[in-house]
């Protein structure tokens, strides 16, 4: 039997008691829930996760976290904001504070986050922010399996602008489960750029939800990178709620070993004259599993919508699996919508061309993989971030060579 809910999970009474808060009464989605069909949570639910213990001591940002030139770093350890590790001098245009987490009901994981998130890291963007904000979420389990629930709330006032970078990383230790929720409200005519990198420990769980609204004339540009973890998912739900809003949502993943990564996107066109485009690219090796589920919903009112999505995956070996499910739900008649999906392998003619110039096969393959991911990564409009993400992918490829 495939139950639609997993009721037996470690996030009930005992978990709440540790934290001294009211318990979460919900359940985790089971494999019968359509959106979770390809990403089973049973293995997660079986682990005796507890909240992060107080005595886990992190006194520095891990060195492999990239330094984005000119960015201010804000650090969360196990979901808790750490002023002592964070930078200062935010400059004009943005305020940061710790806010309350609204117990608003959403999906299971959003509700779970709301029940246990300590506070939100809230960013209030009032004008064109001078500095890039780099949020670093560190998972540190210590001696027991640890679950934590980072919460980021971004409110960009009308006409404001900001660039955010998010790095999700972990320290070696026991298994951890990061359950981050980010809510991003892009005000009228505001512009938010957000670049997220998930490079968790190979034993880690990471189930992220992004809830984005883009008001009239607003621009949202995002790039999400997934480089590993045992079970990772980046669910991104975007609602275009005003006319002439534009969204560019792109992503890439590179998986090996037994890693699992799931991109689930929902693009909700509620109003006319909006555009959205999505380019997702994946590279899979080992026994890994990549998932892309992309839903585009165009409401009856949303005439003159232009919505596109594309997913392409490259197999580096025969072992991995890919599940790809595009869904178009279109209720308006005067729209342009397109989706495309393809999988392939490295082209032997390309390999030979590079090798015939003296490039060894390993390096040739790395060049081709970077090249394959390039048209997604090149969508990142901030050069320093783009370079960093390219370097992160390069490092991922080097780890492959080292195996």
């Amino acid at each position, binding site marked *: 039997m495939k139950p639609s809910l997993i009721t037996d999970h470690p996030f009930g009474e005992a978990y709440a008691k540790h934290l001294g808060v009211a318990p979460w009464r919900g359940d985790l989605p089971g494999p019968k829930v359509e959106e979770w069909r390809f990403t089973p949570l049973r293995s997660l639910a079986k682990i005796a996760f507890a909240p992060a213990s107080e005595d886990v001591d992190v006194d520095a940002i891990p060195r492999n976290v990239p330094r984005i030139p000119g960015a201010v770093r804000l650090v969360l350890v196990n979901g808790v904001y750490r002023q002592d590790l964070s930078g200062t001098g935010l400059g004009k245009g943005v305020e940061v504070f710790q806010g309350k987490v609204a117990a608003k009901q959403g999906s299971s994981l959003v509700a779970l986050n709301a029940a246990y998130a300590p506070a939100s890291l809230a960013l209030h963007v009032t004008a064109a922010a001078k500095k890039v904000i780099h949020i670093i979420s560190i998972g540190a389990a210590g001696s027991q399996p640890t679950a934590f629930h980072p919460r980021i709330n971004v409110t960009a006032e009308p006409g404001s602008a900001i660039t955010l970078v998010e790095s999700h990383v972990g320290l070696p230790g026991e298994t951890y489960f990061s359950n981050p929720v980010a809510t991003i409200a892009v005000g009228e005519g505001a512009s938010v750029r957000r670049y997220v990198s998930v490079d968790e420990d190979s034993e880690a769980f990471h189930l992220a939800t992004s809830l984005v609204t883009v008001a009239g004339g607003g621009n949202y540009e995002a790039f999400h990178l997934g480089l590993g973890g045992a079970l990772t998912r980046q669910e991104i739900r975007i609602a275009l709620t005003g006319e002439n809003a534009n969204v560019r949502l792109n992503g890439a993943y590179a998986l090996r070993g037994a890693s699992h990564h799931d991109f689930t996107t929902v693009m909700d066109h509620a109003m006319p004259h909006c555009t959205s485009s999505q380019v997702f690219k994946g590279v899979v090796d080992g026994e890994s599993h990549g998932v892309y589920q992309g839903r585009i919903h165009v409401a009856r009112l949303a005439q003159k919508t232009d919505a596109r999505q594309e997913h392409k995956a490259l197999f580096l070996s025969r072992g991995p699996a890919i599940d790809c499910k595009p869904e178009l739900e279109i209720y308006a008649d005067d729209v342009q919508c397109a989706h495309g999906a393809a999988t392939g392998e490295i082209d032997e003619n*390309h390999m030979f*061309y*590079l*090798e015939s*110039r*003296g490039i060894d*096969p390993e*390096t040739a393959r790395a*060049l081709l993989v970077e090249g394959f991911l*390039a048209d997604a990564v090149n969508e990142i409009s901030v050069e320093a971030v783009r370079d960093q993400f390219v370097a992160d992918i390069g490092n991922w490829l080097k780890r492959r060579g080292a195996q």
Partner: protein
Amino acid sequence: MALLEIKNLHASVAGKEILKGVTLALEPGEVHAIMGPNGTGKSTLSNVIAGREGYEVTKGQVLLDGEDVLAMAADERARAGIFLAFQYPVEIPGVTTSAFLKTALNAKRRAAGEKEIDAMEFMKLVKKKTEALGMPYDMIKRALNVGFSGGEKKRAEVLQMTMLEPRVAILDETDSGLDIDALRVVSDGVNSLRAPDRAFLVITHYQRLLDYIVPDHVHVLANGRIAASGGKELALELEAEGYAKYLNAAA
């Protein structure tokens, strides 16, 4: 010792024998031209020398400075100094020409025990080489060969050759697709590389190229063998008379 020596080379593709005993020796400093009808095995010969998979060598040898080329992987052959300018260069999306050139150049440098080229030095070198070939510098920012016109692709092949400075360069119909001016520019590029310790194997259908790149020897490849060899006047004769006599003789 010959720089490149091809001895009684037999090779098959998909079970069909294409090369049926090719013998050819390139002495250092020489330019050899190969002409011959379509489908006669000219590209097969160049691919076998460069190390493309899918060709089965059933007999014979290829030696570079006396070393067994056929025992080397394709990338090793290139680092040892073999370069093939392809008849049909492939387009590689996402990989910029500059990243590719730099990687190839550094692979060669590392193999020679030299240090990698730095960014400034690389830029200067590329500027110089692209200018000499009449290519816009910005072209190297584009993905390798993607959307290049036929002639631009051929120029890009020669650019790679002038950057990598091989010991033996095989040009497989590099002249096809070039306009009249480009033919001269590309030939100048090749001639600028002519050196006492380097040899060229120039495959072409047109005698015109050989007015610019003057060969020491001209060979006719017909039915998988060298059917005739001569000086540059052989090319003129072929231009006038065609290949009929060699095809009949070989049949």
